[in-house]
């Protein structure tokens, strides 16, 4: 109840396909049982093929979004190129670990394609920055149990972008429908080597 990770609610998931990745989240922001906003996105872009998903305590989601915007902007100025997903993952990890004894209450996920080789990359973190490198999918948020069940049964390797979109959407939708703190809309990003497609899904509103 007073667990900081489940005051506001929300879930996110990322998957790897054939030369593509997808990352998705719900849109709910609540205060305990009361829904406050149905337009609270939890996926943020840093560079053109690199995304960060943040679930957990909403104030920390906003703080970290701004922190990483600041840090990746500085990175871009110094390196004269956008940040790579692997690099962002290490940046997230070290930023979270700086607060080892007073953590941000978030479960971040990173997904993207390498800027040169377009190699798919996804990973997840705990709240103090331990990286979980996964080859297939990463889940986070209040519906993470449900997402594990959905992803483990629906996922298969080497899906084409459109198939991956269907898989990640079904995984997210059915998972959040079994979680009272997630849902109220959903958004999916499909990232391929030459474009990023964002789709807003029609979902149950309860």
């Amino acid at each position: 109840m007073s667990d900081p990770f489940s005051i506001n609610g929300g879930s996110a998931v990322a998957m790897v396909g054939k030369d593509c990745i997808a990352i998705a989240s719900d849109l709910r922001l609540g205060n305990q049982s009361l829904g406050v906003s149905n337009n609270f996105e939890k996926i943020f872009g840093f560079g053109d093929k690199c995304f960060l998903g943040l679930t957990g305590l909403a104030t920390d989601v906003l703080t970290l979004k701004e922190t990483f915007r600041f840090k990746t902007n500085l990175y871009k100025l110094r390196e004269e190129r956008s940040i790579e997903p692997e690099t962002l993952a290490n940046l997230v990890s070290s930023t979270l670990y700086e607060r080892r004894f007073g953590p941000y209450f978030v479960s971040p996920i990173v997904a993207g394609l390498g800027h040169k080789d377009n190699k798919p990359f996804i990973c997840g973190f705990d709240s103090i920055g331990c990286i979980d490198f996964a080859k297939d999918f990463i889940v986070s948020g209040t519906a993470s149990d449900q997402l594990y069940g959905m992803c483990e049964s629906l996922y298969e390797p080497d899906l084409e972008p459109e198939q991956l979109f269907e898989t990640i959407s079904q995984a997210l939708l059915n998972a959040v429908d079994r979680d009272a703190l997630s849902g109220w809309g959903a958004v999916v990003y499909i990232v391929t080597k030459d474009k990023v497609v964002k789709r807003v899904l029609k979902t149950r509103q309860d």
Partner: protein
Amino acid sequence: MQTTVASEYSNEIHSVPIEHRFNPYSDNGGTVLGIAGEDFAVLAGDTRQVEGYSIQSRYEPKIFDVGDNIVMTANGFAADGVALIDKFRQQLKWYKFDNFGGKLEIKSAARYIQHLLYGKRFFPYYVSTLIAGLDEEGKGAVYSYDPVGSYEREQCRAGGAAASLIMPFLDNQVNFKNQFIPGTDGKEKKPLKYLTLEEVIELVRDAFSSATERHIYVGDGLEIKIVTKDGVRTEYYPLKRD
């Protein structure tokens, strides 16, 4: 002059009374799942039994044929589960004596189990109970309960440790939730249909191998009891043992 020798246990003297508390419950893990078809019903459960991080048994069946073409499971605290099922079996025996061996319909069994559970409202059986069988029309039926007897007839239900992993999968694959007919812009739902026994077995096996992959309390083996008009049949499939 001191005549007594200091006791070895002098530091064992307590200034406050020692408090004791007995915890009557534990969690023995495992997960169960029931699906009703048109003319059949299945109840499935893994065969692992745990206590803490230790595996007590890799084959401890928890789906039981309780007679009258009804299968039953009570997953959670194993001792309570066994006690509940034994009690139901016992009562079914008495029912038969009183009713000249007449068959107990599943809806009557369902209501009776509610009373067994609610009878211990203030010291509950710590279990998620499922029963499966055929109704009066011969259609598949699954009933599910909370620990104190609130119950409902459903097409499908997962219970136990990995219920949260399996239930959304069942919503999606049995009741076709969030599935729409392509080209209708999400306005026309995919129509419901009864699944065949073969399809149901495949779903159950997928559900359990997925749950086994991600949940430490689930694994070792999968035992499925299938109820048809011809009686109860059992199938066994191995699951990962790690």
